[in-house]
């Protein structure tokens, strides 16, 4: 394998420009080991941040926040001594985690296949998103084009990111997650005001249908199918704005 790990990662993580992607595709065609690595990276494109935010509870930290706000510089570093007991019991925390793993995490779950379960799962991720979760800076066009090339390739059909600037929502990023071994694309938008929302796409062999609206995990959801692609709009978006965004998405893409 001649391709560097950095190149392979950047390719799988959607960080390359269209020209770099074309170069990589050419090189990958002659490199089965690298293709195997890419396959593993695609299978491990998982919602890591969402998992950490959903499952590692944060307690009341107001005592630390108060200390930050009232902090007065002191010469002595003696406060750090409070940290000393930590090291005494650090000892292979993750080995213990492994031993205790059966208690920390539930056993493997049955693989869901139903459409409703899939929609529910997407909504549970989106419930974690706030404006602070999304960069205020828009990505360069080359990044956007490269990310959509990856999405199109993994979904096996050309996918265009709807331009929602006319309805005051900016494209932020597109990621592809592996959900039960199937690629699920997420295109994230940040409106001028209000919470971010996502358009998620997955291949389907089910018949087309118009948007159906629901609520899950405190998030508004609209799901529809068109031309072999299942679409899910998810966001804490008021219904009138949601209609506006979905109308723009469907008009832009023919979805």
């Amino acid at each position: 394998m001649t391709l560097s790990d950095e190149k392979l990662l950047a390719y799988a993580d959607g960080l390359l420009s269209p020209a770099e992607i074309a170069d990589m595709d050419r090189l990958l065609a002659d490199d089965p080991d690298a293709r195997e690595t890419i396959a593993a990276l695609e299978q491990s494109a998982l919602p890591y941040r969402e998992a950490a935010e959903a499952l590692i509870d944060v307690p009341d930290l107001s005592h630390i926040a108060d200390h930050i706000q009232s902090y007065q510089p002191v010469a002595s570093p003696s406060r750090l001594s409070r940290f000393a007991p930590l090291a005494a019991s650090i000892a292979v925390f993750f080995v213990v985690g492994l031993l205790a793993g059966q208690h920390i995490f539930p056993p493997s779950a049955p693989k869901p296949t139903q459409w409703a379960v899939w929609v529910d799962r997407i909504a549970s991720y989106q419930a974690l998103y706030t404006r602070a979760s999304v960069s205020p800076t828009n990505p360069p066009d080359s990044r956007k084009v490269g990310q959509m090339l990856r999405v199109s390739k993994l979904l096996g059909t050309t996918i265009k990111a709807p331009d929602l600037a006319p309805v005051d929502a900016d494209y932020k990023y597109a990621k592809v997650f592996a959900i039960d071994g199937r690629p699920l694309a997420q295109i994230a938008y940040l409106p001028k005001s209000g919470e971010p929302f996502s358009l998620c796409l997955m291949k389907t062999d089910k018949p087309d249908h118009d948007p159906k609206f629901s609520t899950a995990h405190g998030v508004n959801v609209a799901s529809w199918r068109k031309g072999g692609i299942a679409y899910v709009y998810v966001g804490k978006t008021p219904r009138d704005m949601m209609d506006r965004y979905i109308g723009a998405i469907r008009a832009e893409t023919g979805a």
Partner: protein
Amino acid sequence: MTTDEFRDDLTALLPRLWRYAMVKCRNPDKANDLVQATCERALSRSHQFQAGTRLDAWTITIMQSIWKNDLRRDSIRRGAGFVDAEDARLVDTDESAEGKIFLSQVLQAVDKLPEAQKDAVYLVYVQGLSYEEAAATLDIPAGTLTSRLVRGRSKIAEMINDPSERERSIERT
């Protein structure tokens, strides 16, 4: 950046710092101490923070340094002992919703990685640092960081594809 802005931004980072501390410490009391020590040092060195750079990456670097140096100072070696299993509780698993079970599996897969790979995956894919920022935080070359990410994610792919691999990973670690 004014002092007030620095303090406000540091306060806003607390949940993220706490989660990373929990991943490292696996114990709320110790995570609390690590976050507190990190904030203390960040405040005392706030004059060194360069406006226009990422405060989250800078602060996590401080946390990493405290963690590493504390380990070194006390000559604690991996394998030298265990924390109490109850203290090792990282997440609440009472939640039975299907979506959370899947997220648990994701977090579990990360948790099963060797520490170096787990740090790399956590900093890039949970904390959102770039490859370069994560490498600087861990004080390793960028090439080492990306190799750890590739190895870590390849193991995660194995675990996701084959649940029994999780158990073998436990035995190997």
